[in-house]
């Protein structure tokens, strides 16, 4: 891991006294490789290493008896700070229902996450309703209904309606008339480069006036995370991110990439297939995971 690699790098200079520019150069190369191995985006790594370089040539590393450890500490600190705040809360609307719109690429975990959020809200005493706005994927509506039944959360669906805009309008009406606190809208997976489907999301945003537009991203996403997040953010002004499937062994560098380019907070992480598998995001833990 990075700690060991840096120890080796700096061990080579024992007896040479002062750290040289070359030593730091080699050490920063190890930091760069560690982040690239964690799937952090190439350009994001470049900027990050530049940040670290400033501190690396400063007193804390140069005068340290354990420069390797000191550098790892700096990298970890910088990463944690970049990852954002601990436990950022879900926004709520001034008038109920608070609408939360879930968006993202195909298969990232939106439908499952929508149900997980409903589960969480119900445990906190709220009255959420799930909205089946994915009219494209085979059995998507059924999937959300089955999940809703598992946690006793109401699901709004309209099998006759092929336009998600109408479904959302109807769901909003129903939630207001029933005095529900939250509307969790599950949307179809889509490519950020699919203009028509991105337009659909823009229309849903106008109709719903959501308090949250959450981009659901698979933790194993590679370099493409930046392109995807930038596009969704540009088109919709997302309010936050949910990183899923963190119960696997993906390093999750996409988290840093997305945070760096959108500046939007990661609010939750998905940690399993069951509906209890949703936890608040902890930046320090994510930083440790990315560093391996």
């Amino acid at each position, binding site marked *: 891991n990075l700690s060991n690699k840096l120890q080796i790098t700096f061990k080579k200079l024992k007896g040479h006294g002062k750290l040289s520019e070359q030593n730091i150069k080699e050490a920063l190369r190890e930091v760069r490789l560690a982040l690239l191995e964690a799937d952090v985006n190439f350009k994001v790594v470049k900027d990050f290493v530049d940040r670290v370089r400033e501190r690396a040539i400063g007193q804390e590393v140069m005068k340290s008896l354990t420069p390797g450890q000191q550098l790892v500490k700096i990298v970890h600190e910088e990463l944690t700070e970049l990852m954002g705040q601990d436990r950022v809360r879900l926004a709520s609307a001034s008038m109920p229902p608070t609408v939360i719109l879930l968006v993202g*690429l195909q298969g990232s975990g939106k439908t499952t996450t929508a149900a997980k959020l409903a589960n969480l809200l119900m445990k906190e005493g709220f009255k959420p309703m799930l909205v089946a706005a994915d009219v494209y994927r085979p059995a998507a509506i*059924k999937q*959300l209904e089955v999940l809703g039944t598992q946690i006793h959360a109401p699901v709004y669906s309209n099998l006759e309606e092929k336009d998600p805009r109408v479904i959302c309008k109807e769901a909003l009406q129903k939630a207001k008339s029933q005095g529900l606190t939250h509307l969790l809208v599950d949307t179809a997976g889509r490519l950020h*480069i699919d203009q028509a489907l991105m337009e659909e999301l823009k229309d849903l945003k106008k109709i719903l006036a959501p308090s949250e537009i959450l981009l659901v991203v698979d933790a*194993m996403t*590679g370099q493409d995370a930046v392109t995807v997040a930038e596009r969704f953010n540009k088109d919709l002004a997302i309010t936050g991110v949910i990183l899923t499937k963190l119960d*696997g*062994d993906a390093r999750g560098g996409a988290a840093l990439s997305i945070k760096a380019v959108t500046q939007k907070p990661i609010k939750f992480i998905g940690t399993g297939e069951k509906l209890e598998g949703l936890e608040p995001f902890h930046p320090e833990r994510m930083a440790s995971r990315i560093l391996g």
Partner: protein
Amino acid sequence: LTGKTRIDEGLLEQLEEVLILADLGVDATLKVISSIQSKVKKKELEDPAQLKSHLKREILAILKNGEKAVDINQATPFVIMVIGVNGTGKTTTIGKLAHNFKKAGKQVLLVAGDTFRAAAIEQLEIWGQRAGCEVIKHEPGVDPSAVIYDAMQAARSRKVDVVIIDTAGRLHTKKNLMDELKKMKRIAGRELSGAPHEVLLVLDATTGQNAISQAKLFHENIGLTGLILTKLDGTAKGGIITGIINELKIPVAYIGVGEKLMDLRPFKAEEFVEALFA
């Protein structure tokens, strides 16, 4: 990559960026770059204008070894098991495969081996309807091996040509889920000698270096005969298969390029390399 008079460090860094951004991963990128570097040192490669084409040839050579054709005529019924982590496109890909084989005049049987995830069986049934083939299923929650058992009997008695088994998505790091998959494979082989004839791992092209861990562990636990790389209609390049082909020697059979029935193509190394550098 143009406008330079000799191959220097800056030019190699530019190449490194192209490869990393295409998700080749650190290992494969360092290997390719160092191979280029040694050629430059030996003066075998001196012209910067040649660099890109040389790089493309080097990667093409690796990928060419990784082309696989699934030959369903090798056995009847020919059994294909489709596995992979959650959400990569297994169920959708099975619909596409069924359509493919039906077009070739074959009788196809689908097996609803995902008895866990909400509406997984209904999802496969819709693909079965679209492709025009039957689906063997039980109620959700039953042991998936029981569905496999029934499917193998049905395959024989109905004299089908191809059987495609859908399985629940699962993370490669979950031992109990890998054990479940091992049992499914064992039951298939016990009931139909030689089955499964293909075990295909479905990888999402947006996945980074975790794809290597996925391929490694699924291969160690279950034994893979090939890969299917999906969602190449997005902006991700899927370059990670370079390392998987080179290091693990697992070939790629198909690529997924969309969400519709016909959005499946055989893996072609030349097209793939062109897209990598596009």
